[in-house]
C-alpha cells in the first residue's frame, strides 16, 4: 500500500477509535458523576435558584433517567451511526445544530489565532535565525519564554486593558462583528507565536548553515532570493509539523479565552455542559473536538508531505 493511503487508513481507524472511546468514556464518567443528575439538569434549565424537587422530578420523568444504562449507551451509538447526536437535555435543541454554531465560532477564533501566530512568530524567527546577532536571539528567547510563562487569561486581560480601555481601538468582548475576533485571537496567538518563533528560528538557522543554502548564495542569488527559493520551504516543514503539537495548547486556551471574552464557542459550551450534566452535549462536544483533532493532525501530516522537498523527490 502506498504510504499516503496507509497513513490515511491509520487516521480513519484512529477516528473510529476516538468516537468509541469518547462515547464510552463520557458515558461511564457522567454516570459516575456525583450529585443527582435530574437536579443538575433542572439547574441548567431553570436557573440556579429555580431548582426545586418538583422541577427535578419532572426532569427525571421526562428524560427517563432511571432507564437502563446499557440501553442508553447502545442507543447513543445507534443514533450516532445514523448521524444523530441527540438533543441537549438543557435547551431541548438538537446537539448537532448547536455544535455547528459553536464549532463555527471556535474554528474562526482558532484559525485566526493560528494565522496571527504565524504572522508574528515566523518573520520574527526568520529574522533572528538569519541574523548572527546574539542579542536578537537572546531577545527572542526571552520574549518567547515570557509569553509562554503567562497564562492566556492574563495576556487576554492585558490586551483588553491596552486596546479597549486605554486606546479604545477594539471592543473588549462580545461577538457578532469581525472586530470582536481580534483580541481573543491575539491572546491565543501570542502564546502560540512564542513557540512558532523559536521553532522557525532553529529551522532557519539550520537551513542557513546547510551546504545547499551556501551553494545557493554562491551561485549568485541575493539573500532575499535564496530565502524565498530555498529557505522558506525547508523552514516551513518543522513549523507546520509543530502546529500539530500546538493544537492542544490552542484547545485549552480556547476554553479560558472564550469564557473571558464571552465568545460563544465550543470550549465555553463544554464547561457549561459538564456543569449542567448535559450528557448528549458533552458527548457531542467531545466527539467533535476529538475528531477535529484527528482531522487537523491528518492535514498537518499531508501538508508536511507536500512541503518537504526531500520526500517529494524520493
Amino acid at each position, binding site marked *: 500500500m502506498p504510504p499516503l493511503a496507509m497513513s490515511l487508513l491509520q487516521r480513519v481507524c484512529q477516528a473510529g477509535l476516538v468516537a468509541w472511546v469518547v462515547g464510552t468514556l463520557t458515558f461511564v464518567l457522567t454516570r459516575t458523576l456525583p450529585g443527582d443528575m435530574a437536579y443538575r439538569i433542572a439547574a441548567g434549565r431553570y436557573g440556579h435558584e429555580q431548582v426545586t424537587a418538583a422541577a427535578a422530578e419532572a426532569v427525571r420523568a421526562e428524560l427517563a433517567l432511571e432507564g437502563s444504562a446499557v440501553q442508553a449507551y447502545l442507543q447513543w451509538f445507534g443514533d450516532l451511526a445514523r448521524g444523530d447526536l441527540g438533543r441537549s437535555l438543557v435547551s431541548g435543541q438538537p446537539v448537532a445544530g448547536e455544535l455547528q454554531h459553536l464549532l463555527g465560532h471556535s474554528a474562526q477564533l482558532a484559525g485566526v489565532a493560528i494565522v496571527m501566530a504565524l504572522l508574528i512568530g515566523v518573520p520574527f524567527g526568520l529574522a533572528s535565525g538569519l541574523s548572527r546577532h546574539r542579542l536578537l536571539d537572546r531577545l527572542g528567547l526571552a520574549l518567547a519564554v515570557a509569553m509562554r510563562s503567562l497564562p492566556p487569561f492574563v495576556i487576554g486581560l492585558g490586551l483588553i486593558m491596552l486596546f479597549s480601555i486605554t486606546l479604545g481601538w477594539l471592543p473588549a468582548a462580545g461577538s457578532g462583528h469581525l472586530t470582536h475576533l481580534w483580541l481573543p485571537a491575539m491572546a491565543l496567538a501570542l502564546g502560540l507565536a512564542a513557540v512558532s518563533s523559536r521553532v522557525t528560528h532553529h529551522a532557519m538557522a539550520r537551513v542557513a548553515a546547510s551546504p545547499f543554502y551556501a551553494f545557493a548564495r554562491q551561485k549568485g542569488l541575493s539573500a532575499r532570493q535564496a530565502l524565498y527559493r530555498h529557505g522558506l520551504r525547508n523552514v516551513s516543514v518543522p513549523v507546520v509539523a509543530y502546529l500539530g503539537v500546538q493544537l492542544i495548547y490552542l*484547545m485549552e486556551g480556547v476554553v479560558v479565552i472564550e469564557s473571558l471574552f464571552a465568545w460563544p464557542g465550543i470550549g465555553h459550551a*463544554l464547561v457549561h455542559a459538564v456543569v449542567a450534566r448535559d450528557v448528549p452535549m458533552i458527548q457531542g462536544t467531545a466527539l467533535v473536538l*476529538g475528531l477535529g483533532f484527528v482531522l487537523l493532525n491528518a492535514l498537518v501530516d499531508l501538508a508536511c508531505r507536500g512541503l518537504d522537498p526531500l520526500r517529494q523527490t524520493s
Partner: protein
Amino acid sequence: MTTTATHHRIPLLRLRVPLPRARMAGALLLALLIAFGWLVPLWHDVSPHHQDLMHTLTPPGAEHLLGTDPLGRSMLGRLTEAVRLSLGLALLSVASAAVPGVVFGVIAGWRPGLVDRSLGLVADVVLALPGLLLVLLLAAIAPGTFWSLYVGIALVLWVEYFRVVRTATRTLISAPQVQCARMLGFGPGYIFRRHLWPELAPEVTTLAAFGASTAVLAVSSLGFVSIGLRPPTAELGLMMTELFPFYQEAPWLLAQPVIMLFLMVLSFQLLAGREPQ
C-alpha cells in the same frame, strides 16, 4: 532528536543551546520558590484563611509583609500556600506521568509487534481525546479536590513521555553496545540502567520541565473558569480572579500571583535547558 554534542560542532548553531548558566538560573529560581513555599511559613506562620474584614487591602508593610487581600487575609500566607500547592501538584503529576510513560515507552520500543502496536494505539487515542475534557470530567466527579486535577493532568501528560521514550528506545535497542549486552546475557534491568536510561534521562528531564509548566498553567486556568480548586483555597489562578477587580485600587495585589506564576513557569522553562524541537 539531535543531541547537544552535534550542535557544538557547528559554530553558527552554538547559540541554539542555551548555556548551562540558564539551567543553573532555572534551578536556583526553583530552589528559591521552594524555599518561599516551605521555609517562609516556618518563621512567619500566618494562616492563609484568617480573615480580618477591618484590615483589608493594606499595602505591604511591617505587619503584613505583602499586604492583605480584600478579606483581610495575609497575602504572604496565601502566596506561600499557593506556591506549595502549584509546585506540589506540578511535581506530583509530572512524576506520576513520567513513570508509566517511560515504562510503557521502553516496553513498546523494546518489543516491536503486537505489544508496541497496542500501546501505540492507546497513546494515539489518548492523544486525540481533548485532554481538557478528561480534566473537566474528573474535576466534575470530585469538584474542588486536589486529586481530580492531579489525576486528570497526569493522564494527559504521560503520552508525551511514552512517545519520546518509545522512539528513542527503538534506535537504542538496535545499537551495537546493547546488542552485545543482550548476547552476553545481561538482563533487561541491567540494560535499562546501563544503556537506555543514561541516553533517555536528558529527554525525560526536558519533558518533565515542560510538563511541570503545563501543569502549573493548567491548574491556574481551570481556577480561572471556576472548575479547578474552590475558594477559600489559595491557588494562583483563583487568586488572580479574586484580585482582578482590585487592579486599580490595589495593583500590588494582582501583581503578586501573576509574578509568582511567571517565575514558576520561567524556572521550569529555564530548567528544561532546551527549547521545543
